[in-house]
């Protein structure tokens, strides 16, 4: 191969990646990205830094390199300028492509297979999300660790040099910081050793031990939540069904047929043909005692295995790393067919049956994720402008639809910039489909009573989402609010926010930086519950000096009815109480909630007799 030929050989798959996924490079943030971007704001000292880096978060995952450090470093350097994040992700993906080419060439001894493997992999719909959505970067990084680890292990078995073995160890251990899927690496290495270098399989045993320890520790420290999407089902029928769904996603045709409204039989036929070709090739080779295709299939199954119990969360991008195995298998098949001469048109046709519809889906899917990010970008950047020209004012967003809410509001992007007073108008609620598994949308909406109050005070501006711009409609919206009857009391109030002032009764001091001190006795007003079975929630804090001198007694009445008393001590200075609401209060327009403490404190230089710092009261 000439020098130019070599360059073309190595660069073509990389250029193909950039051409196919260029929107990813331009994409903005959405959904979970904002939680990770906000992580840096929680770091105030070394202890909180350790928490941010290593505490189990987001379904109990611990991914310090690919999520925590990635987002904290990049958000420190680049803020909400997404291009830098995506350039890094693409750079890492180009490394993955190079590693895949090297590993495939080494395993197959075929330059053609080395070239085709990344090309086939890149056509997979599994790559869209990780290359367009920064939160899924962990998949890209995880592939690097697994491919590099395998390459080093192969080199170790080829040369017997311990330096490669220690290299495997280094990559393997570091890989845990990328994605917990790294736990399967020993199985990949062991499969390789058993099939091709049997004398080295013992070297994988310590790796298994580390994976075992990691699995035990991870299971012990992870936060257990009853999350519908991450429910795990280990029954064989469920696992098989999930595997089947992933196989259909991977081979693309069934999804393509649905997407294009084509006849179902086309998808079924394509699925049968491609499955028969891939599995038939592996079986045929295995009978001939050539086990490389089995190893490639093994990669697919081994990496996918830990994800199969998540039966409610079958997600295309979970195939990012498993798809590498099938891409290598297909590339190897084509390279063998090429060698045989007569079979290569058939192999090429099979690849095209997969690559063309899958590639088309990639383009469409990448565009759709990109456009969701664009809508989010316009919203957040426009709010930033509104905050700049209306300093100190609450921003109310009107006309936020379902897609924009879940992409750009639910993740609380405004809190990253320290804005806790950006809400949606109550009218938006009807435009959003709530997901019971993601909690209520109430915290994102300013209740009608508070909207009316803040508009009356002139402390809020209202912006309507119009295509990709925000239009100030404060005057119009105010006229509408004024033309309608007084809204009902807000069922959830924050006494530290001025727009709930009308529901704050006697016994309170002024607002201080988002909270308010009570006196010995204080009152708030809430609406009665909309239906029976609702609870009254109370959230506040006791100061250290308050509980240091002994427990504090908290007695609350709901519309004059005494409730069980609570004791607040140093162990639990955060007040978080719940009370059953009497059924006869259902539908009542206003109920009085009052509480009394058995003592107050005073601090030097302040004449006030202080009770507790609040806080929220809500009917939920």
């Amino acid at each position, binding site marked *: 191969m000439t020098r130019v030929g070599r360059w073309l050989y190595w660069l073509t798959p990389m250029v193909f990646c950039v051409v196919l996924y260029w929107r990813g490079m331009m994409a903005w943030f959405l959904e979970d990205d904002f939680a990770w971007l906000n992580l840096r704001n929680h770091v105030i000292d070394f202890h909180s830094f350790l928490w941010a880096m290593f505490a189990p978060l987001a379904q109990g995952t611990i991914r310090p390199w690919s999520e925590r450090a990635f987002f904290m470093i990049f958000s420190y350097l680049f803020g909400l300028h997404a291009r830098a994040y995506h350039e890094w992700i693409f750079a890492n993906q180009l490394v993955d492509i190079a590693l895949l080419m090297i590993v495939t060439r080494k395993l197959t001894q075929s330059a053609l297979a080395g070239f085709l493997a990344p090309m086939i992999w890149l056509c997979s719909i599994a790559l869209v999300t990780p290359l367009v959505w920064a939160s899924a970067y962990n998949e890209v990084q995880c592939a690097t660790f697994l491919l590099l680890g395998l390459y080093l292990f192969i080199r170790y078995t080829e040369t017997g040099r311990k330096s490669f073995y220690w290299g495997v160890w280094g990559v393997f251990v570091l890989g845990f910081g990328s994605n917990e899927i790294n736990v399967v690496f020993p199985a990949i290495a062991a499969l390789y050793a058993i099939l091709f270098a049997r004398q080295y399989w013992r070297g994988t045993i310590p790796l298994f031990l580390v994976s075992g320890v990691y699995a035990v520790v991870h299971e012990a420290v992870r936060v257990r939540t009853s999350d519908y999407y991450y429910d795990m089902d280990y029954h064989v029928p469920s696992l098989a069904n999930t595997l089947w769904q992933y196989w259909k996603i991977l081979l693309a045709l069934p999804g393509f047929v649905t997407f294009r409204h084509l006849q179902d039989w086309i998808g079924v036929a394509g699925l049968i043909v491609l499955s028969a070709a891939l599995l038939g090739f592996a079986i045929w080779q295995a009978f001939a005692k050539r086990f490389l295709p089995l190893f490639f299939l093994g990669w697919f199954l081994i990496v996918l295995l830990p994800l199969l119990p998540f039966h409610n969360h079958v997600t295309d991008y979970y195939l990012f790393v498993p798809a590498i195995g099938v891409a290598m298998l297909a590339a190897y098949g084509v390279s063998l067919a090429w060698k045989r001469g007569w079979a290569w048109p058939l192999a090429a046709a099979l690849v095209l049956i997969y690559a063309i519809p899958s590639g088309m889906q990639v383009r469409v899917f990448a565009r759709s994720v990109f456009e969701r990010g664009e809508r989010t970008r*316009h919203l957040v950047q426009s709010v930033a402008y509104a905050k700049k*020209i209306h300093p100190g004012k609450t921003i109310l967003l009107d006309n936020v639809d379902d897609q924009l809410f879940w992409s750009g509001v639910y993740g609380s992007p405004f809190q990253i910039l320290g804005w806790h007073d950006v809400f949606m108008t109550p009218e938006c609620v009807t435009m959003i489909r709530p997901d019971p598994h993601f909690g209520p949308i109430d915290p994102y909406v300013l209740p009608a009573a508070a909207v009316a109050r803040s508009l009356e005070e002139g402390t809020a501006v209202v912006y309507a989402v119009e295509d990709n711009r925000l239009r100030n*409609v404060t*005057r119009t919206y105010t006229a509408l609010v*004024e033309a309608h009857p007084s809204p009902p009391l807000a069922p959830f109030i924050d006494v530290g926010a001025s727009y709930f002032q009308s529901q704050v009764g006697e016994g309170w001091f002024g607002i201080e930086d988002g909270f308010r001190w009570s006196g010995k006795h204080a009152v708030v007003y809430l609406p009665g519950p909309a239906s029976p079975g609702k609870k009254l929630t109370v959230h506040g804090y006791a100061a250290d000096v308050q509980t240091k001198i002994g427990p504090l007694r908290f007695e609350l009445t709901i519309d004059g009815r005494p409730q069980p008393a609570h004791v607040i001590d140093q162990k639990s200075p955060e007040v978080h109480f719940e009370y059953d609401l009497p059924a006869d209060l259902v539908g009542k327009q206003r109920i009085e909630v009052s509480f009394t403490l058995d003592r107050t404190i005073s601090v030097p230089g302040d004449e006030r007799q202080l009770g507790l710092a609040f806080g929220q009261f809500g009917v939920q």
Partner: protein
Amino acid sequence: MRHGAILSAALFCLAAAACKNKNPIRLEQTIEESRPLVSRLRFSEQSRADQLVSGFFDLQAGSWRWAAPQFEVVLASPAGAQSQGAELVLDFDLPDPTINTLKNITITAKVNRIPLAPETFSTTGQHQYRRDIPASAILSPETVVDFTVDKYLEPPEDGRRLALVVSGVALESK
């Protein structure tokens, strides 16, 4: 070699720190309210979309919009309206498909939640819905007007409910 690595690492850190963006986010200009509300909305004139509260679809041919069965506008109350009342005027068009399909439509309006008399239209072409508004309905310098149309078209695979082709709405002094 070792010194080279340390120097490279230090240079990388310096370069990264130098890259630190001073502005955490790019700003995107919003469309601000610059002019007072008007009492006459002509869709052919300069955009006053901020006064169209709900129920209108995109501007067509720079002069009209499809309206949904319920639509709402905010208009400036004309001078003297709070003492003498005013007149509500809705300019709209009923295209052939609307009348061919629905035979007739009835429009009702509410001004600041006070209902006005309905009117039924059964011919194609341009029409005007015109009603007197009592002074007692004009409460402030801004007046909210709700319109309701009893029938509408639902073109297949369109998703919209199309009631009227509206070209303007106004509050006129008496």
